[in-house]
């Protein structure tokens, strides 16, 4: 059985022949800083959800529940747009 990712088994020309597959590409490993949520401070204004460029803010029943760390690249925009009076999101080094 040849390797499913071997040259005999993949589409020619470097084509990606299915759509919507960026979900399979885990970009979380790119992070240097990780966003951390303080749920007690969060007022669920959803500014972070609006601005996150990687759709990595997880909302359940209109409540901010945390981050999709498989895809969050650690850009820090969520922490930046979190209202200063609230400051519910902190960026911490990945190794901390």
């Amino acid at each position, binding site marked *: 059985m040849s390797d499913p990712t071997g040259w005999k088994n*993949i589409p*020619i*020309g*470097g*084509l*990606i*022949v299915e*759509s919507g597959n960026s979900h399979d590409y885990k970009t979380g490993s790119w992070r240097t800083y990780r966003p951390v949520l303080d749920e007690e401070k969060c007022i669920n204004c959803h500014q972070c959800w609006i601005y996150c460029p990687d759709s990595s803010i997880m909302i359940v029943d209109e409540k901010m529940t945390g981050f999709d760390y498989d895809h969050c690249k650690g850009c820090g925009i969520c922490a930046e747009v979190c209202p200063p009076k609230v400051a519910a999101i902190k960026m911490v080094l990945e190794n901390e």
Partner: protein
Amino acid sequence: MERVSLTGNDAVGTAMAQINPDVVAAFPITPQTELMHKFAEFYADGKVNTELILVESEHSAMSAVVGSAAAGARSMTATSANGFALMWEIVYIAASLRLPIVMPVVNRALSGPINIHCDHSDTMGGRDSGWVQLFSENTQEVYDNVIMAVKIAEHKDILLPVMATFDGFIISHTQEVVELLSDEEVQKFIGKKEMYYPLLDVKNPVTYGPLDLQDYYFEHKRQQVEAMLKVPAVVDEVAKDYAKLTGRKYDFIEIYGPEDAEISLVALGSTAGTAKDVVDKLNDEGKKVNLVKIRMFRPWPHETIVNALKGKKAIGIMDRSDSFGALGGPVFMEIRSSLMGEIKEDITANYIYGLGGRDISAPEIESVYNDLFEIAETGKVKNRKTYLGVRE
């Protein structure tokens, strides 16, 4: 079948009109310009349904046909020399995206110093680009090659771009009698284009040209190699079908003169035509020699070449371009590489000739055969590389 007198450019322009591509991108460069003039005449007269895109450079011409071919359109462009050089980046991309583009290339010297006349330095530089390369001796052959190229490129096992080359001015601007197929015959022969993930199929979206990097690039190159390995069988199959239609059968190479001659000269392009006269003359004089004309340069027809040249006592190899600092010209290096282990003695001699359109005459070709007689007699090659026709 209609017999008419046409220049090489007019014949190829006519072939393109008969192919009636969905998209043609055009940019002028000598000596290709008249080819597109001819095609544009058919376009202006409403004889083709083509979307003719007049671009601002050859880089754009190749980019335009890459886009249209990915969209699923039968796409063509044509160029020469520096125009081909300006396409360079996209020439490789066309092959690696596996787009069956067909491009006539009118061979011309690369500048500088500036020169608009024939040599093969343009397309020989593109021999590693992943395109199939068919060289043509005369107007009839390039007309035929361009039509066959469509079927070769679009074959489901291949999906590679094909360039059909012919010599600038010597063929492109010279009138010759050509047998033309009818438009219907050409259309029936090339058939309807089969689709491979066309971008215009919006119900099945696909991505062309994503990042490949260390993960997959090597696998995709390996696939290109595999497609090239399958080209000879397809070229042969297409040539057989074409022969049924026209009576003209093209092989990877053509051996002119007695096959068992012990003296062979290798050439491609229009020089093969001149050399044929010399072969006739020498054989009439009782000197048994032949000519091996190479029609398909990429993929390199290794086994066919070995069968044609093993057992020879002297082989002269004509190169209309040089590879500076290398052992010899591109054809020479391929031939020697093929013959490794097949011949005992080193009996090959390289002749670099005709650079920048310097004329090659029958007496000069005869002088090469005279060198080959000496090599056959002595078993020794005095000059491995000779610059034929250059002033000392």
